């Protein structure tokens, strides 16, 4: 065997090994979390009161939903602006770099900023909406960057084809460019939701560490104990893990609760990613056809 060929084999082997190690590690991690979570499982974990985490489960979904409600339109709007309206040049480059670095700022800093703006300045107490808005600060850049890149990657012929039929620029963007870029934009939405599921530090001082819900009041949105009231405080799953590991540790089942919460959170995030990926793949398939 020649030297070049041996080297090639070796490198291929190394890359395969790295890939398998990563996969094994990921599987190990996920399975450990899920098994540990199930090991100490007690039925009352599923309830809404006492040791139950149903409220936290609901809060997490609600908070992610609210934050996407804010970050998806703003993120897509900003991405479209960057790709289609902003003038090319130094300013645009600086702007793009700033947006990209915004999403990698330490989340505790963003959390304190959210506390300052959404809690101190508004004079309200901890609430879910403040948490969702704080998460949006972290997730808008992800959607913006993804949208910007997706639209720039589209062939210029799409735009010309649409304008050539007498469409205006905004019709072209709404009816051709955004739908064509949607599969990739959804990748940004997955990452944005991931921030919402996983974030704890940014929520400490914004959405709060307690939940007082009365499920009887579900549709009475203005009631301070209604689950749907966005102005009530609401602890999410990831925050609950942290609380159970610190001040909540007085509870004799704290470790089991924290483990179970972790398992639920991992499964929830995984499910969301899988479902969104499926939608995105379907769209891609529908767009690109095949016979």
């Amino acid at each position: 065997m020649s030297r070049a060929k041996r080297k090639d084999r070796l490198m291929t082997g190394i890359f395969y090994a790295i890939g398998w190690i990563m996969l094994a590690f990921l599987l190990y991690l996920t399975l450990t979390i899920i098994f540990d979570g199930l090991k100490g499982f007690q039925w009352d974990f599923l309830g809404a009161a006492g040791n139950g985490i149903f409220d936290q489960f609901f809060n997490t979904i609600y908070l992610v939903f609210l934050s996407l409600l804010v970050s998806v339109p703003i993120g897509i709007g900003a991405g479209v602006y960057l790709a289609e309206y902003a003038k090319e040049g130094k300013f645009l480059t600086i702007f793009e770099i700033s947006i990209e670095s915004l999403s990698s700022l330490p989340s505790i800093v963003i959390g304190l900023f959210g506390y300052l703006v959404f809690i101190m300045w508004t004079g309200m107490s901890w609430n879910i909406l403040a948490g969702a808005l704080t998460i949006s600060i972290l997730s808008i850049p992800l959607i913006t960057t993804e949208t910007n890149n997706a639209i720039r990657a589209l062939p210029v012929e799409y735009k010309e084809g649409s304008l050539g039929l007498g469409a205006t620029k905004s019709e072209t963007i709404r009816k051709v460019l955004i739908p064509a870029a949607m599969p990739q934009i959804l990748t940004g939405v997955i990452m944005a939701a991931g921030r919402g599921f996983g974030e704890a530090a940014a929520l400490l001082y914004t959405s709060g560490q307690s939940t007082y819900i009365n499920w009887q009041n579900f549709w009475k949105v203005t009631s301070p104990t209604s689950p749907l009231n966005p102005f009530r405080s609401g602890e999410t799953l990831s925050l609950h893990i942290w609380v159970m590991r610190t001040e909540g540790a007085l509870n004799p089942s704290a470790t089991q609760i924290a483990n179970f919460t972790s398992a639920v959170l991992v499964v929830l995030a995984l499910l969301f990613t899988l479902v969104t990926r499926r939608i995105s793949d379907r769209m891609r398939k529908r767009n690109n056809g095949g016979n």
Partner: protein
Amino acid sequence: MMEDKITIEKLNLYYGDFHALHDINMHIQKNEITAFIGPSGCGKSTLLRSLNRMNDLVEGCRIDGSIKLDGTDIYNGDLDVTVLRQRVGMVFQRPNPFPMSVYDNVAYGPRIHGITDKKELDEIVETSLKQAAIWDDLKDRLKKSALGLSGGQQQRLCIARALAVKPEVLLMDEPTSALDPISTSKIEELALELKKNYTIVIVTHNMQQAVRISDKTGFFLLGDLVEFGETDQLFSMPKDERTEKYITGRFG
């Protein structure tokens, strides 16, 4: 005496400092096919793209002189650019169907211009696809993505899409350069059929194509319109030495 559909007078076009078209004068007549030929970079595509103001998209593009559509100045008149582009449709070099179904591609233009009635849209889609001679190929796959079609089918779909907004003029920018010979001859037959109802302007690299389908031909060189006249005459007895050199293959 035939009617002028498009009248180009003393047209100069600049990309920033670059003077791309010099003093072009041209009369494009109704229900004829007018071909633009010339070597790459001679300005033929630039001129074509001025006829529906696609050059507006290019930053630093500036124009003086006038282009009139049925006597109305398309740059300085009251003609809205979206209306202009509806009346002057375009088919591009690379087939560019949108990433959506065959039906939605053809219905795109009519929908943009305010047609929402399902029956009316169905009719337009069918008529347009028939006019583009591709209805039989596609009638059973209207809901399938247009990107799954072959190149030749895609290009005829794009012609159908352009026809769906009921244009008066059809601009074709090297419409067969990305296609195989069979698809090319289908597009050429189609162009001959369409000229009964439309005015067609076609840019082509292929001189035989100009001879086969066009009534008039303009030969461009370095931004000048060197010669413009009846296709037969231009190819058999060119008046200008440069035209002769080009069509006999001595440069270009």
